[in-house]
């Protein structure tokens, strides 16, 4: 810690220390944030404090899709308008946001909370795969969309899930892998390009 924070009053140095633990926040930014809050109106500061406290106290995992939620089942699983016969499988809760932004998908989700990574010792038991299989057993679901990341671990997880789900007779699809919008062909790697060729479509 820098000298200023040690010589400052205890509540100040403590907050600086806490800020300092956050990703991307160095000692100087931590000081700036702390002194900003010191001068900010009391209402603003307590709103921030409440927001931080609520993050841990009010949130839990949805009992159906295991997304992070403040109500159980979560807002997506409760929605009668959505297509309950489709489940899109994602690695992390944060992956749901970009998919929702597309407004193209109206089915449900299932969050694995990780991805199979043999060399890190992460296997199926560390993920929410048992929960997924239980969901699929009720016979309501007709399609599973594998939306794990298009990298080595994501593909491994998708291939593993495919093997587990195939015997259940449910349609299994994988998000198309190809060129990102706005990219340059010359920088594309062979795997991406081969996938893009395989998945080419009639215009």
């Amino acid at each position, binding site marked *: 810690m820098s000298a200023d924070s040690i010589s400052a009053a205890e509540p100040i140095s403590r907050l600086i220390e806490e800020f300092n633990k956050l990703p991307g926040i160095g000692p100087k930014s931590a000081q700036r944030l702390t002194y900003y809050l010191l001068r900010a109106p009391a209402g603003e500061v307590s709103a921030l404090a409440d927001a931080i406290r609520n993050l841990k106290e009010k949130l839990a995992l949805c009992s159906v899709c295991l997304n992070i939620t403040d109500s159980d089942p979560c807002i997506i699983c409760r929605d009668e308008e959505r297509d309950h016969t489709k489940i899109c499988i994602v690695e992390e809760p944060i992956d749901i946001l970009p998919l929702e932004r597309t407004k193209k998908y109206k089915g449900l989700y299932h969050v694995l909370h990780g991805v199979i990574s*043999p060399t890190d010792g992460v296997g199926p038991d560390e993920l929410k795969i048992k929960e997924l299989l239980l969901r699929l057993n009720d016979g309501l679901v007709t399609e599973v969309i594998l939306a794990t990341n298009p990298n080595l671990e994501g*593909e491994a997880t998708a*291939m593993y899930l495919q093997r*587990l789900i195939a015997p259940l007779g449910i349609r299994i699809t994988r998000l198309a892998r190809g060129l990102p919008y706005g990219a340059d062909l010359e920088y594309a790697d062979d795997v991406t390009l081969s996938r893009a060729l395989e998945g080419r479509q009639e215009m």
Partner: protein
Amino acid sequence: MTAPRTYQTEAIIIKRIKLGEADRILTIYTPELGKLKAVAKGTRRPKSKLGGHVELLTHSRLMLAQGRNLDIITQAQTIDNFLPIKDDLDRLSRGLYIAELVDSFTGEHIEDRQLFCLLLETLKQLSQSTDYEPVLRYFELNLLDHLGYRPQLRRCTDCNSTLKPDTNFFSCKFGGVLCHDCGFNEPAARPLSINALKVLRLWQNCDFTAARRVRINRELAAELEQIMREYTKYLLEKQLKSTAWLDRLKSEVSPK
């Protein structure tokens, strides 16, 4: 300050961990510089120009710039992406095991062209084969051989007597085979069937093509795997993490 120095090298990516928001630290194995770590910036963004060129188990040509701490990968071009490995869960899992094995057994910045060639050849063989066990065992044996842990399979490692065509023993502590009598008195040694010994001897002295031609049944394959696993575990003083996954895969979802 002088301009940052850059250099080019071939490399096989054997490990990668996330760094910050979109970067990765790669562990790469190169012919001239041995194993080293380097930063690949922005590779987790969809439009990264490095992206798939620096994915795990890829053979690439890299341009690196010397960094303050770790060198930074500035350009990458795939030489071989080993797509057949990445497209098949069984092959992929074995590929990851091979990468972990190399990472565990090597230190950084030790030039070892032969090991690079062995690794490259192993990945090539793995992408062509459907019988993975001989590929893995051949690689393990030759890796150990190369690093100075070649198991002694001709004579008893304790009494130096020639081995009889009988059930002998394998001892990690002695680094090789014990004859029937010596092995009996060594509680940590495990029995070694005559067929397993023959196959190990052959693999120790033949090339990859001949090694792959060996047909071994399930029982023998399991015995050989167990021996090599115990021996590598003994040498590394740890169990490789990917072995748990290999076991899981075999017991649970293998199509065969």
